[in-house]
């Protein structure tokens, strides 16, 4: 008589690859499990699915589910590695922008689940005002928990936009464009995607990675020589992208 552990391991193997216990009954579970993943990822990666079509998408999800197992009982958080998987998925080789669109869709999904903001622009400005002037450049900032910074060599946002329900107008996407520097974040009204100037993107990315304001300014100026720190800082505090000071 197999132990419970043996039974579960055998069942799992049979479900995944068809083994000694495999039968039409195991196949019912296999179908349910894989169709759950197809549905869950299909609800998150809506544009990716439109770009490649359902049969391609479902086949890619099946391959992903085998290669990168779900490790969590909350299906809502499965799929974070799907963009990376697509980036190296041989069958998607002629769609080099696909992974970036997937990263954008995952960021939108994750932003909706992120913690609610704490603090306020007023509180952050007050905290900054208390910092002695010469120490301001040494400050580190925490971004709002919903923020995700993305860079794409392709017009990822434009591709995403023309695939949104209700999009009316010219659906032509030009690939002869500068890279997309994007921030995805959640405001009171919902998740938004903004295109940022390269300097702002470099500033926020450096701060998000834990760098201080001096390092962030260096990165911003390197990306955009006429970068204006005060204006950018004011804007990102006012719209809550920068949430609070980190304790050094």
């Amino acid at each position, binding site marked *: 008589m197999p132990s*419970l552990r043996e039974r579960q*391991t055998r069942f*799992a193997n049979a479900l995944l690859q068809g083994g000694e216990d495999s039968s039409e009954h195991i196949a019912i579970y296999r179908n349910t499990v894989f169709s759950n993943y197809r549905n869950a990822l299909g609800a998150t990666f809506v544009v990716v699915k439109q770009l490649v079509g359902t049969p391609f998408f479902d086949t890619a999800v099946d391959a992903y589910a085998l290669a990168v197992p779900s490790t969590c009982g*909350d299906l809502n958080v499965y799929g974070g590695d799907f963009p990376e998987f697509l980036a190296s998925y041989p069958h998607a080789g002629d769609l080099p922008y696909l992974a970036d669109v997937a990263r954008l869709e995952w960021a939108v999904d994750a932003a909706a689940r992120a913690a609610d903001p704490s603090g306020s622009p007023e509180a952050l400005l007050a905290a900054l005002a208390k910092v002695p002037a010469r120490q301001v450049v040494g400050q580190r900032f925490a971004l709002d928990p919903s923020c995700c910074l993305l860079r794409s060599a392709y017009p990822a946002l434009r591709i995403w936009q023309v695939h949104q329900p209700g999009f009316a107008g010219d659906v032509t996407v030009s690939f002869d464009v500068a890279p997309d520097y994007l921030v995805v974040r959640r405001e009171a009204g919902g998740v938004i995607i903004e295109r940022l100037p390269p300097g702002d993107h470099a500033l926020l990315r450096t701060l998000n990675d834990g760098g201080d304001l001096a390092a962030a300014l260096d990165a911003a100026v390197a990306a955009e020589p006429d970068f204006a720190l005060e204006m950018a800082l004011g804007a990102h505090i006012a719209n809550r992208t920068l949430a609070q000071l980190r304790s050094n």
Partner: protein
Amino acid sequence: MNRRLPNSVGIGLRAPHVSHVLASHPSVPWFEVHSENYFADGGPALAALDRIRADYPISLHGVGLSLGSTDALDTTHLAKLSRLVDRIDPAQVSEHLCWSSVTGRHFNDLLPLPYTREALDHVCARVSTVQDCLGREILVENVSSYLTFPESTMMESEFVVAVAMRSGCGLLVDVNNIYVNARNHGSDADAYLEAIPPALVAEIHLAGFDASGPCLIDTHGAPVAPEVWGLYERALRRFGRVPTLIEWDTHIPEFAVLQREAATAQSYLEARLAVAA
């Protein structure tokens, strides 16, 4: 006990209906939601549940704790459930008598257990851990299955009852699952009901199955079948008036369809009351 669900028919609330419920405040005695759908740290879905909780009793129904798994209990998952329970103060918390994960891989599905002494000991210990962590009794639900295991030494009903008796949890009796399993495995659904002590039963689930394949599949994607209404009627005769839930998870119809199913179930509950009076 102020935590109990109303003895009436609630509806399983799924994402497509949340905005309708918030906007129109339908007359529904209580809602059940899948706990995991509210494990987020924040955001609009959780905020919506807070608002719904202000107006309706809520039951939290877990689908991912993997109670029967031989992997270690996922303490992160349990901590998120505990956080949600503290936030929502639900009338009921339930999970499934099944397993979903092994050797670190999650299948995110309700997989059947063999009904052995070893599985019973294992599940009882895990239910106790969960109840200790949450500081309250939970309900466990019988699942549908498409195969049985040769090593099983107990009837499913025996196993389910033993879990409740030993761990002190209550039972969420899914009448549709009893019917599906009876048809799939050639067992006796009425004998199953007879094996359950009425005092253990705190909630009933009703849903629809798919009969198009070689066995009945518990899709939660169809109206409750006539035979299941019949079994529900007999369940009420045995268990008395028990809070009942209409579940629909695939091909989710308009909310009005769920309300009609709930009204049908409510008429069975009222009839049971009339008989009892």
